[in-house]
């Protein structure tokens, strides 16, 4: 859990992902489109990945915790949440507040 929070606060936007997960790819794609430079941690490629995944499961309360998006050090949620926020026009302000965007 410590590792998760530590990594989550290192950058404005942090995404915990798995390299084989296509949903994660969608979220990464969206951030890329928005011009956000997100820090991506592939849990399947990290030596402490399993541990972090367990921590995320506890945080998110679901079986598959990826993608897990943190903005400004705070947990925002998974794909669902990101999409809802974006369509509601609330994602971009959130990103701006966290300093991930400058426009």
């Amino acid at each position, binding site marked *: 859990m410590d590792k998760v929070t530590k990594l989550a606060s290192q950058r404005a936007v942090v995404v915990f992902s798995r390299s084989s997960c296509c949903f994660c790819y*969608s979220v990464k794609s969206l951030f890329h489109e928005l011009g956000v430079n997100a820090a991506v941690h592939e849990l399947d490629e990290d030596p402490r990945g399993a541990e972090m995944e367990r921590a995320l499961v506890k945080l998110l309360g679901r079986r598959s915790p990826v993608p897990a998006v943190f903005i400004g050090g705070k947990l925002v949620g998974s794909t669902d949440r990101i999409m809802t926020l974006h*369509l*509601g026009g609330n994602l971009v302000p959130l990103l701006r507040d966290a300093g991930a965007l400058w426009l």
Partner: protein
Amino acid sequence: MPLGPPGASRRISSSNNMSSASTQFASPRKMGIFEPNHQIGMWGDSFKADSSQNTGASSIVEAEIRLHNRLEDSPRTTLGPSKKYDQEANKPADKVLRRLAQNREAARKSRLRKKAYVQQLESSRLKLAQIEQQLDQAKQQGVYIGGNLGESTLGLSGSVNSGVTAFEMEYGHWVEEQNRQTSELRAALQAHVSDIELRMLVESALSHYDNLFRIKAIAAKSDVFYLMSGMWKTAAERFFLWIGGFRPSELLKVLSPQLDPLTEQQVIAVGNLQQSSQQAEDALSQGMDKLQQNLAETLTSDSSGTSAVSDYMGQMVNAMGKLEALVSFVNQADHLRQQTLQQMYKILTVRQAARGLLALGDYFQRLRALSSLWAARPREPA
């Protein structure tokens, strides 16, 4: 193969131009008048199964039957042709008689063919009724007939998945209710009802869409490929298919022209929604492409020969795992559709929302109508 020498009939009715090669029908007098002989000749060719669904095709069949009935009349009235023959007094009588006999023979064979055709129709009809009954029974019992690794097909061809049949039934009802609601919206807008009443209609229309997404989610768990194939939609709707449904950005394109006049604030909000829904859509599409790529890679990774069987099994297990992701994608795409509708409702006034929903309902209705028209379009004879 034509009955009776074609040349014979032509010579008798000297002034008629016979463009068609099939001159099976007796009366030379009638031949020149009814030019679609080739259509009637098609009876022999069987009754195409799909024409039972198209009112267009069946009315053609009815017309053909009526046409043939009229043609049939002439051989019985032997007086008719013989009048004409009197004019050609130079022809030897036995030739004339021979031709008469040939015409009668042709007419008789034609009647027999018609009879066979009608019998074929009747038995097909019975078979269809039987099959429909079986299907109803199966649906009622929620029977899962045949079942293997998730292979599912529609209706009569092979195994019947109860989740699929349940969805098809529910979707049918959903469409009926949608059409009803669309008419209601139109009437309400024309009658200039109060905003309160309009709001009720708008909210029930939106929750009706929620119903659609709900039943789709259940169907996705049952058979995601079926949902993604769009076979539950009409053909023209399928043309626009994106991850098991309509594109959110398309929805906005249909709605926007109907919403004027918009305040400046609304214009900006709609513009933002268009942009963000397009971005979200693109992101999902990218994810889908990646999934395809991953799946293809999984299935094409070469086994180094030593443990081919376990490699194969491993491949399959791997691939199966990937397919699970498809369900999530369909759900996420539906989530996007739902969110787009909800956001539009937030941006618009009640009256604008009503007009927008009416436009949307009309649009889908027209797509469905187009599909029917297309299916019933007259085709070139084989």
